[in-house]
């Protein structure tokens, strides 16, 4: 029997409305007891005084690039970056090569994760075969193999009828349909947000309406079909309003927001730094305000990274030719604490809800809480620690982040998956 005693931390578990200094005893990969002054002879003791102890963080939107682009990221390296960022579970998007549109690829990811990943890995299957937007992928087969949701992430499903069929067909499987909302005709050839900044820079813009229009269609289809639509990486004030309205009408719509979208505006593209290029693009200050409001009022269900590693050779291209996407696993918690908690917008329990409790519910997994018998997935973090993000130390195989050298307040101290310490910061623990 293996036991780990996490002593003296501030235990925050919104699922049980817990928020007090306590000890947590983990036995055989499960949460055993939470109480002050626990003794467990023979167990390993981790001193968590001064730290927050929360259910493990869950990122339901990550690109691991394996199979196909192992030069950019692997399931192993991505999970190492996740663990260093405090994540105990990650969901990987299907736009690999080959696309995860069949049970063989789903099974490969799970087997590879079992052998090499530090965290739990949940595959997301494709909506359409090859994510080509033409016919349905084998959704049931992928769910049977372990997929927890479907998405054609990277582009929107342009065919409304196909989207309707995907929603209807998926009903018995009780999975979220995760949509990258982008009308590809409206955003055609764009490489940043359409607005004053794109006009000044002479770069083709992607209109916010390209996101809003598809979000509106999908929410209406969710109303029609009763399916669960989850809006991926929501970035506009318009889409936030649509989700808010949809929820008030009782439609099963949820959404996620990325830290970069509430931290940087399109003004960050001024130096043509390709690490400010992602899809959806960095929007305007007004959108940032709207996202913050939507996070505060509960419209936003979870925070995700959209961790998208790219080979540096490709990010060295001209801005309009460089690929979309940035890495984000190791900066997410720091940005959330810096941008949302420290300015007083949300509380620490709310941070845990947005990064653990609610994402677990969205993917229908019995995670995101510390009830007795739950998986012993924990994140220990110091909400007040000041540090500077250094890309040179990233665990990811890629280096495409606009946050190199950014000062952050709030830092991961240790990550525990299934009762095993998979990451601990040398700032807090001597290994």
């Amino acid at each position, binding site marked *: 029997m293996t036991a780990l005693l996490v002593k003296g931390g501030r235990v925050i578990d919104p699922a049980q409305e817990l928020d007090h200094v306590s000890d947590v005893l983990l036995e055989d990969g499960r949460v055993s007891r939470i109480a002050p002054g626990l003794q467990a002879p023979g167990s390993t003791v981790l001193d968590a005084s001064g730290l927050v102890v929360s259910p493990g963080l869950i990122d339901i939107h990550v690109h691991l690039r394996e199979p196909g682009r192992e030069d950019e990221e692997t399931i192993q390296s991505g999970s190492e970056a996740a663990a260093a960022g405090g994540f105990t579970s990650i969901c990987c998007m299907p736009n690999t090569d080959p696309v995860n549109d069949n049970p063989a690829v789903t099974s490969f990811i799970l087997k590879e994760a079992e052998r090499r990943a530090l965290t739990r890995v949940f595959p997301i299957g494709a909506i359409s075969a090859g994510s080509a937007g033409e016919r349905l992928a084998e959704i049931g087969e992928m769910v049977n193999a372990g997929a927890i949701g479907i998405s054609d992430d990277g582009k929107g499903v342009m065919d409304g009828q196909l989207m309707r069929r995907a929603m209807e067909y998926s009903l018995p499987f009780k999975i979220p349909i995760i949509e990258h909302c982008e009308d590809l005709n409206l955003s055609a050839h764009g490489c940043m947000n359409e607005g004053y900044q794109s006009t000044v*820079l*002479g770069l083709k*813009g992607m209109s916010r309406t390209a996101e809003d229009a598809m979000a509106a269609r999908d929410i209406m289809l969710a109303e029609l079909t009763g399916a669960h639509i989850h809006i991926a990486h929501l970035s506009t004030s318009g889409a936030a309003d649509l989700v808010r309205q949809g929820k008030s009408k009782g439609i099963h719509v949820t959404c996620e927001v990325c830290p970069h979208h509430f931290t940087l505006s399109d003004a960050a593209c001024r130096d043509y730094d390709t690490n400010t290029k992602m899809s959806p693009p960095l929007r305007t200050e007004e959108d940032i305000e709207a996202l913050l409001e939507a996070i505060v009022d509960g419209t936003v269900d979870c925070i995700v990274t959209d961790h998208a590693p790219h080979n540096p050779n490709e990010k060295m*291209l001209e801005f309009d030719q460089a690929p979309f996407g940035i890495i984000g696993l190791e900066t997410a918690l720091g940005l959330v604490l810096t941008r949302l908690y420290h300015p007083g917008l949300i509380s620490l329990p709310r941070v845990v809800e947005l990064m653990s409790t609610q994402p677990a519910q969205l993917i229908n997994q019995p995670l995101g809480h510390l009830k007795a018998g739950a998986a012993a997935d924990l994140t220990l973090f110091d909400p007040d620690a000041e540090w500077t993000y250094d890309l040179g130390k990233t665990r990811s195989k890629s280096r495409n982040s606009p946050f190199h050298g950014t000062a952050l307040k709030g830092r991961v101290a240790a990550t525990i998956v299934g009762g095993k310490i998979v990451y601990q910061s040398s700032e807090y623990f001597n290994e």
Partner: protein
Amino acid sequence: MSPEAIAPESGASTPPTSRGGPVSFNAKHLLGIEPLSVDQIQLILETAKSLREISTRPIKKVPTLRGKTVINLFFEASTRTRTSFEIAAKRLSADAINISTSASSIVKGETLVDTARNLEAMAPDVIVIRHSSAGAPHQLAGSCTACIVNAGDGAHEHPTQALLDALTILDHKPSLQGLRVAIIGDIAHSRVARSNCLLLGKMGARVTVCGPPTLLPVGFERMGAPDGSLTVTDRMDEALEGADVVMMLRIQMERQREAFFPSVREYFRYYGLTARRMRSAKPDAIIMHPGPINRGVEIASEVADGPYSVILGQVASGVAIRMAVLYLVIGGREQAPRVAEG
């Protein structure tokens, strides 16, 4: 023979001044109009005026940039601009090398940065770059020690065009201050429009840009002077009303396919410049075009070839501006160019 007799034109050998005192260019690159101060713009214009005379001599060459190497790195087809830069370099005795290559790093199999580093190894003093991607000169400037001159990057900027346009206007008008300038055509895809709005805004002109709403980009009204004097309109008569200067922009035929407007015929009906339309402008208004012109698409031949057209004057100004720019970025930051024949 007195020393004055050697100097071909009075003032040609005195340092260009602005606001009463000598100024220095003090910039290593010319990436766009946006980062330039009014003083820097004036210095370039004054320097160009003093260098212009060289092109009228029987022997059109001075030794000012002897031993300097200028690479014209053109990733996009161009005859006029490339030739203009080449002539400018040669008239100052610099060695000019032209490289024309495929625009796309992906097609070429070599990134822009790698191309730049290879050229850098040959120790050029200036790299003049034309590229279809906005920001390419900025990326080059970040990875090179040579001076970078932007000869047009995507739909971003074309600073030497705006400078030569200003020089041309000043041949016909006493000052840019308060001048009414209409810029008409495909504003969305035009680096010429952007650089001109920025320059004219800084110099106190009142600019109106005009085109079909599909070719007017979001937020363009903020591109001009900080006082908000830039006007955007989709009505050509409104743009021409009382104009001192009319700048027409080239319409790319492929914009029809992209549904920006239905046909060339219809475009010309609403946004083509005709002698009749010119009656709205001031009687002494001048007509400009960055070229190459599409006769019958954005401008009627009668107007392009008419008495108020200064289109060929723009081409001549181009050489002088590019001589000034090459001279100033290479290091003529303090002293005046040596224009004595030699």
